[in-house]
């Protein structure tokens, strides 16, 4: 099964409202990555968090990694129609010395103008 759980599955917002998606793991993660997939497109890397309690910002996007390194969140301030897409978190699963990215099921963001 999935190593990381992501909620919500869908989120409808009015343009200008904020949006948050959450990623939770039952085990401690060495790092967590976030990806964005536009409708009809492919996932594109956004950021990687490594440190406990780490917070990183990219313009209107704020990424957090929990103190226990078991959860993470992505917050978008004042959403725009260009933010539409599915946001995935991915945690590494160690297998035979390799770290294999395991994805959450994603949160689809729908922005209504």
């Amino acid at each position, binding site marked *: 099964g*999935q190593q990381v759980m992501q909620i919500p*599955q869908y989120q409808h917002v009015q343009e200008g409202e904020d949006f948050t998606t959450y990623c939770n793991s039952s085990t401690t993660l060495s790092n967590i990555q976030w990806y964005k997939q536009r409708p009809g497109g*492919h*996932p594109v890397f956004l950021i990687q968090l490594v440190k406990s309690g780490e917070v990183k910002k990219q313009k209107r996007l704020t990424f957090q990694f929990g103190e226990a390194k078991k959860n993470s969140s992505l917050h978008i301030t004042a959403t725009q129609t260009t933010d539409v897409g599915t946001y995935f978190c991915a945690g*590494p699963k160690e*297998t035979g010395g390799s*770290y294999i*990215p395991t*994805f959450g099921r994603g949160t689809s963001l729908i922005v209504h103008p």
Partner: protein
Amino acid sequence: DAGITQSPRYKITETGRQVTLMCHQTWSHSYMFWYRQDLGHGLRLIYYSAAADITDKGEVPDGYVVSRSKTENFPLTLESATRSQTSVYFCASRSTSRTGELFFGEGSRLTVL
């Protein structure tokens, strides 16, 4: 700068036929991955490869075969396609870093009738 390319982008086939999806990357990345994406399931790992001639199963490997005779190529074969294999398939690559970002191809949409 082609990066990572997949072919074909779209494929319609019939149950029982063999289908091969191609993936080619120009970066000489060590790691390559095949994911399938289905509504409600996010991205699920089929197979991955840490280097040429080294492949390993992911979460949903049944019905699929891979090979990696050259670093740059990682074909995925459905030996006898079934309707449940109708999906969008993404190939991805990663450098030698154990935890680096994934670079995804544009995807191959497969329909099995």
